């Protein structure tokens, strides 16, 4: 019984926390005090887009909800004025 519990507890830890604890994500807008996202700045917006041109989810970039909305808005505006492509194979 004891052995079993000993075996299962590290396994459970492994399931919930893969490998070493990762560096904590942060919202770069909150951290750096950025209040406005420029939709004309393609190089900056490329960070929030994968190489197909899709907007990256918050769980990958760490952006807070408030700024994720602005990111999405800016990327969509940039697409409209052909600063960013709607689709692409290798943006990066």
């Amino acid at each position, binding site marked *: 019984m004891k052995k079993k519990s000993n075996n299962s507890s590290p396994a459970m830890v492994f399931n919930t926390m893969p490998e070493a604890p990762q560096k904590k994500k942060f919202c*770069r807008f909150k951290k750096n005090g950025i*209040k*406005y996202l*420029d939709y*004309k700045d*393609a190089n900056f917006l490329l960070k929030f887009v994968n190489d197909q041109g899709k907007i990256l989810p918050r769980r990958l970039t760490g952006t807070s909800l408030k700024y994720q909305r602005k990111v999405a808005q800016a990327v969509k505006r940039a697409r409209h*004025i*052909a600063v960013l492509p709607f689709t692409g194979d290798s943006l990066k």
Partner: protein
Amino acid sequence: MATKTKSNKTESVVAKDYESVIIFTPVLSDEQLKDAVAKYRKLITENGGEMVHEENWGLTKLAYPIQKKSTGFYTLYEFRSTPDFISKIELAFRRDERILRFLTVSLDRHAVIFNQRKRNGEFNQPKKDLKQEGVK
């Protein structure tokens, strides 16, 4: 009563900040482009708008073809005007065959400050730092 006060408010319209990005066809000659740019500048100022800034990016590559053209002349107008003027200017944009694409956006106060700082050139250095941080 409530509706009355509302209508009074809309009568005394407050000017707002706007920004228009326009893509002109690459077919235009330099002079034609100048004419076209001047036309909209005139339209804005004649309708009680106030030009804040104007920018020409020159011939720029588009991220995807529009009307089978892969380049375009980008022009940016930043202006203050009343909200009812926007429908007018957008109608003019739509009627103009020289325009491939346009986007008019109202600016909040952060955006106005951002544009001002960008124009003054004080933005380049902190921005580069941020970019490096983002790459990490």
